[in-house]
């Protein structure tokens, strides 16, 4: 079947089998390999993308769900358009050492951006609750929490400018 959707701001039309998972479509057909497949059982969160602005696990999403929708992947995350800078949440993860091996990081960032967009004044408890679906085997989470708090603050500040 043919589906058309907006992918990181660009109109996209692809032919897919209905049984195609969005994570597969992104990585194998569209060669956007920033979206990682960790567990492939919708537990680890490495594959989180934004579907119509909401965080979803792309390993547990059938491609037909994209038809007519807007999809944002880690490749589409950026700072102010034209600035050639990273997104404030990415900057925060670098600044606060919110990653070690980096495998979970694309999903962490997508979940974190969704959290901070939904609730700009995040508390630490909100962040811990909000990251329940994202697993990191390196950091012990502390620096990820610090990064998300800082990134959320930076996003709020950037919005206020």
């Amino acid at each position: 079947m043919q589906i058309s959707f907006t992918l990181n701001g660009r109109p996209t039309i692809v032919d897919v089998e209905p049984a195609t998972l969005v994570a597969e479509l992104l990585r194998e057909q569209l060669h956007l390999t920033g979206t990682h497949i960790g567990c492939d059982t919708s537990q680890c969160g490495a594959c989180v993308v934004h579907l119509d602005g909401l965080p979803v696990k792309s390993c547990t999403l059938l491609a037909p769900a994209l038809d007519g929708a807007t999809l944002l992947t880690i490749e589409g995350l950026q700072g102010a358009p034209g600035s050639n800078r990273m997104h404030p949440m990415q900057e925060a993860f670098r600044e606060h050492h919110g990653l070690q091996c980096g495998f979970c990081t694309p999903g962490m960032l997508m979940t974190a951006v969704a959290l901070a967009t939904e609730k700009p004044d995040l508390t630490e408890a909100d962040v811990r609750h909000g990251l329940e679906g994202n697993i990191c085997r390196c950091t012990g989470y502390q620096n990820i929490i610090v990064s998300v708090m800082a990134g959320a603050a930076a996003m709020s500040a950037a919005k206020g400018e």
Partner: protein
Amino acid sequence: MKPFAYHQPHQIPDAARLLTSVADSKLVAGGMTLIPTLKQRLASPPALVDLSRLGSLKGITDDGTTITIGAMTPHAVVAASKVVLTRIPGLAALASMIGDPAVRSRGTIGGSVANNDPAADYPAGVLGLGATIVTNTREIAADKFFLGLFETALEPGEIITAIRFPVPLKAGYAKFKAPASRYALVGVFVAKFAGGVRVAVTGAGPGVFRVPPMEEALSENFDPSAIAAIRIDAEGLTSDIHAEADYRAHLVTVMAKRAVDAALG
């Protein structure tokens, strides 16, 4: 996954017809249970009927004495709904505890209720509030809907369109979650109405169930102390790698007390 045909009907009668036209076809709502099931090849339906294009299945309406939630309303929408937060805050709290944010973006109340996972959260809220399950053909009382392990009163071709909740005086939910899956090891929903109290338990057994002795005690005195001494029988409860039946039985009382606390807020 094995290949399947995929239908995206825009009208409920079309969905019902597609569902029954090819044997073993399945409905897909948010897909949070179905897609993992397909991936593990525990099911291989010849066709999926996607309910997401049926606009009439989404949304929350306040009808005065009841709140009606469309079957395709995602958990995140219920959790953040001003109507639900104001009228049945215990139900909004339950929705906010399901899975993780990504699951709450996609998973729907209708899908959860139709699937009737023995450790799902919504069945406790639906039974605890004595809600009505509205389908394309009839209305079913919660007390007659949940029949046991993944089994409901739904007939072949029947599609849940909405759940209608009576507004309680007070309601609360508490769950002890399995840390990895965040499913309820034991979850208890408590609701107080003018006519009495309802207590519904999920996670503990093969299906959601009520606890009449707790309902009677709480109807007399809606306070955690009223049920502190009530123990439920571990016979028939679930024992698995997560917990033994006697531990689950113990947790029912603990979670019921916390649910009353939450309801008293």
